[in-house]
């Protein structure tokens, strides 16, 4: 498993960056935080493009930066996908791919060119000028170009930021399969929580130039002390579910989570398929008795693990265990008092809406 060691201090204007940690990189690691938290700067430092940071960067035991020594970007083997894409305008699509392929170290393993072109659906684009590509096409070319350089580490800086929703969804599929298909660890910068939930195996939370938490994505997303990061209302929990059956008449799909069943609008997935659900805290209501005569279909029984309140806010965040899976609910403090909720209370979680991540 790849390992990234950072011990960095940087002062850039009135912004200071301080990171001292070691990251086990496996699959996709999200670097998540609000705009201006230093994510992109950190990515540039790791790539070797930022000369203003002091400290240490090491990858798999190889020192990339230490004291005055700085390994130049072109020998690190860390390829950066820029938010503004940066294809070479004087080369066509095929030329851009060749540019990277010709400079890939022959000693390093890499995926087959045809395989890369096929998996990113570029067969029909190879002769096109880069100026004629749509945003999604350009970003796919950039990903293929990065892969052809045979990187040891793939750094992605908000690659979906400039795309519309439909293109985002399609590109997400491609990005999700990168580590598994090509065996390259990915460090993915984003400020969109849905991308984190969808893609990331591990997540690092960043704020004001510091890492404030890191761990499995599911654990990070349900942490109660981090509610303000994603503009407050978007915190939630991830659930791994399995497609159980389809009800064509009602246009519903039934999913199982542990021993519970959830209904969602019909999904185009075969029975047995694994899906990842994101349930936002504000979409979960709580009851102490099983409600009857209610329109909400999805009611799960669980136990309160923890309740967090903030003296200023009218809301409380409640963490609930449902057969080992965790849910978060955002309800008023008044409701907590009225329902006499404490850690250990038995509750029914009423889920108003579920976002499907895959």
């Amino acid at each position, binding site marked *: 498993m790849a390992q990234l060691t950072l011990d960095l201090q940087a002062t850039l204007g009135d912004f200071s960056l301080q990171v001292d940690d070691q990251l086990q990189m496996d699959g996709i690691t999200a670097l998540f935080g609000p705009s201006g938290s230093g994510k992109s700067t950190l990515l540039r430092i790791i790539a070797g493009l930022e000369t203003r940071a002091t400290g240490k960067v090491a990858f798999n035991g190889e020192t990339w930066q230490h004291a005055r020594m700085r390994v130049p*970007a*072109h020998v690190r083997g860390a*390829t950066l996908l820029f938010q503004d894409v940066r*294809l070479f305008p004087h080369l066509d699509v095929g030329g851009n791919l060749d540019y990277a392929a010709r*400079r890939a170290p022959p000693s390093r393993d890499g995926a087959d060119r045809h395989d890369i072109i096929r998996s990113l659906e570029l067969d029909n684009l190879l002769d096109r000028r880069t*100026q004629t590509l749509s945003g999604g096409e350009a970003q796919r070319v950039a990903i293929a170009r990065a892969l052809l*350089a045979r990187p040891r580490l793939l750094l992605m800086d908000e690659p979906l930021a400039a795309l519309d929703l439909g293109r985002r969804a399609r590109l997400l599929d491609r990005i999700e399969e990168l580590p598994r298909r090509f065996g390259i660890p990915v460090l993915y910068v984003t400020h969109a929580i849905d991308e984190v939930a969808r893609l990331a195996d591990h997540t690092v939370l960043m704020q004001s130039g510091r890492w404030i938490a890191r761990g499995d994505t599911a654990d990070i997303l349900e942490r109660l002390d981090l509610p303000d990061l994603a503009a407050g209302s978007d915190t939630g929990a991830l659930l791994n579910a399995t497609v159980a059956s389809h009800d064509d008449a009602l246009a519903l799909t039934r999913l199982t989570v542990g021993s519970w069943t959830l209904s969602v609008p019909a999904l185009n997935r075969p029975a047995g398929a694994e899906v990842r659900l994101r349930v936002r805290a504000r979409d979960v209501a709580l009851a102490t008795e099983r409600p009857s005569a209610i329109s909400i279909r999805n009611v799960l029984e669980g136990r309160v693990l923890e309740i967090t309140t903030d003296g200023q806010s009218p809301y409380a965040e409640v963490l609930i265990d449902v057969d080992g899976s965790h849910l978060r609910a955002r309800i008023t403090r008044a409701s907590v008092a009225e329902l006499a909720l404490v850690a250990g209370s038995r509750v029914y979680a009423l889920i108003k809406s579920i976002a499907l991540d895959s």
Partner: protein
Amino acid sequence: MDFTPIWLTLRLAGLTTAILLVFGTPLAWWLAHSRARAAPAVEALTALPLVLPPTVLGFYLLLLFNPQAGFGAFWLELTGQTLSFSFSGLVVASVLYSLPFVVQPLQTAFQMQGRGPLEAAATLGATPLDAFFTVASPLALRGYLSAAVLGFAHTVGEFGVVLMVGGNIPGRTQVISIAIYEEVETLNYAQAHQWSAILLVFSFLTLLLVYGLNRRSAPRVG
């Protein structure tokens, strides 16, 4: 009709342009990317020939070329020839005089592309020199065309500096602009007409080429 002045002019302009493209490129690159405190001073020095009367430059060059002392003596020692009133001296003078016309279009071209393409090339494994030749230079192609055309044309059109450091020696330093001056002085208007018409048409076609290129490729940049 004696074509020697034309041949001499083309040789001078061609050589000057070639030298300027080679040495102007690193200078333009440095000016485009440097954050050094000396950069504005170097930029101002580079632009001086744009505003100085050619006689001022010619005067200082004559002092520099003086075979009795300093650089002029060193050159005489090295080559056995003086720089003043020689073709070599004209080349040195023209390089200085046309410097801004080559450096400024290149500097603008490098500045416009920014660091982005080079950073992308670096993370794909290209060394800085590799990235310069395979990414920065092709992207600055239009700048190179402008620089070459303007440098060449401006050298063809120079008069004052040439007259001061080169004099008027047929076959050695008598370029076309000097030849015209000579013909007018000796009231040989027919020959003056011919030379002038040639220069006029050449200059117009040159500028037409530069502006045509700028207009045609402008929307593609970026």
